[in-house]
């Protein structure tokens, strides 16, 4: 059964020191949506994503999951950063197994499926340190997907991915659409190709424009 979740951000503010990083940000999204957050450097895109992930406290406003603050437990949110967030000394398999078990997934079949999907099955016993940056980013996608999150936050996910990797990421975004809320922060929305999405453009910490792209 597919659950429909909603994310409702109301008048969100974030101040660090004397500087307002985010001002009066409001938007709504739900399972099935792909929300793409764009804007130039320093406009607060990553800060917004980190607040939604529960990694940064907000200064004001509300973040409502299914109508309630903290309505979605931390484990149900996946976060793909521009850093791969992996243990370099551990093997590909050990990394995936560790994060899977942390989320209560203890299935070798799931591990194999995911590693085959991101094309890392032949490297399963290799330490992460020998993988290229693009391969690490693909493993980072598998790390998030193994938890079967209900909301996935992607921060510059196309970083370091080659054309094949970018195609794989687009396929993952489309495949996860029916069961997850997905938010993507990117400088290059063109890399989303034919995918339909809603763009939220930020400027100086405020929403400049919201626009639907696609059919």
């Amino acid at each position, binding site marked *: 059964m597919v659950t429909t979740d909603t994310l409702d951000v109301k008048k969100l503010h974030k101040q660090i020191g004397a500087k307002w990083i985010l001002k009066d940000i409001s938007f709504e999204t739900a399972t099935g949506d792909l929300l793409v957050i764009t804007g130039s450097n320093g406009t607060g895109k990553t800060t917004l994503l980190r607040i939604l992930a529960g990694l940064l406290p907000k200064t004001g406003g509300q973040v409502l999951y299914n109508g309630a603050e903290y309505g979605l437990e931390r484990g149900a949110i996946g976060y793909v950063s521009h850093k791969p967030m992996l*243990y370099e000394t551990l093997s590909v398999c050990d990394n995936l197994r560790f*994060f899977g078990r942390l989320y209560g997934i203890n299935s070798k079949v799931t591990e194999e499926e995911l590693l085959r999907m991101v094309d890392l099955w032949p490297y399963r016993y290799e330490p992460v340190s020998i993988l290229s940056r693009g391969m690490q980013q693909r493993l980072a996608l598998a790390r998030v997907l193994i938890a079967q999150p209900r909301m996935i936050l992607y921060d510059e996910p196309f970083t370091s991915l080659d054309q094949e990797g970018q195609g794989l990421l687009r396929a993952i975004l489309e495949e996860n659409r029916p069961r997850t809320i997905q938010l993507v922060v990117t400088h290059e929305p063109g890399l989303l190709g034919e995918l339909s999405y809603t763009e939220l453009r930020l400027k100086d910490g405020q929403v400049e424009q919201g626009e639907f792209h696609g059919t």
Partner: protein
Amino acid sequence: MAPNFWNKVFLIFKKDLKDEIRTLSHLLGTLVFGLMLVFTFSYALQLADLETSRVFSAALWVSIYFSASLALQRAFAKEVESGTLEALLMGSGDRGVLFVAKFLYSLSLLLIVELVVVPLMWVFMGVTGHNLHLGLLVASLFLGSWGLAAIGTMLNGMTTQLPGSRLLFPLLMFPLLIPLLMGAVLTSQGAVLGETQSVMGWVYLLLAFDLIFTVVPLLLFDYVLEG
């Protein structure tokens, strides 16, 4: 089935141990530093011609304290450097899980270092130990290490994401550890000299200290990690 608090603690603890066994970078560095302190103290105290059984526990705890200030800085720092702290924070759910797992890892490291450092210091300093109360010495080492690991884990969590954390960590750790060091030194000295009754008050102080600095960070670790 979703893993419970202790399943997650064990998982993170096991991962840290596996990582440490593969690299040995952290443990080896601390051990070498601890051994250098043992040799330096043994040599210096022999030259000073002091009664070794009276100064043994002070020299031992100074060595343990400095080794610990090196060992305990790494529990969260390596997660920050590899960028995995955020993945752990999101995966563990309850941040108390992280505190307990990192505390157990730090305590294990300290106890391993002590397994090597204590007998060597005993031999090199030529302590006779005719009246040694081994049980009390082991208890003082365990309770002292427990407190060191608890405070070290809490402060490492607080400072690891701040600029200048390597300087800040020992500066904050020292004043907080004064009661613990007093208790540990005097209890160990009582054990070496066989004066067990007179140090029982210090044992209770160590127990109370350990309890407070384990329970309080466990409850407040959400705020601790935000520095």
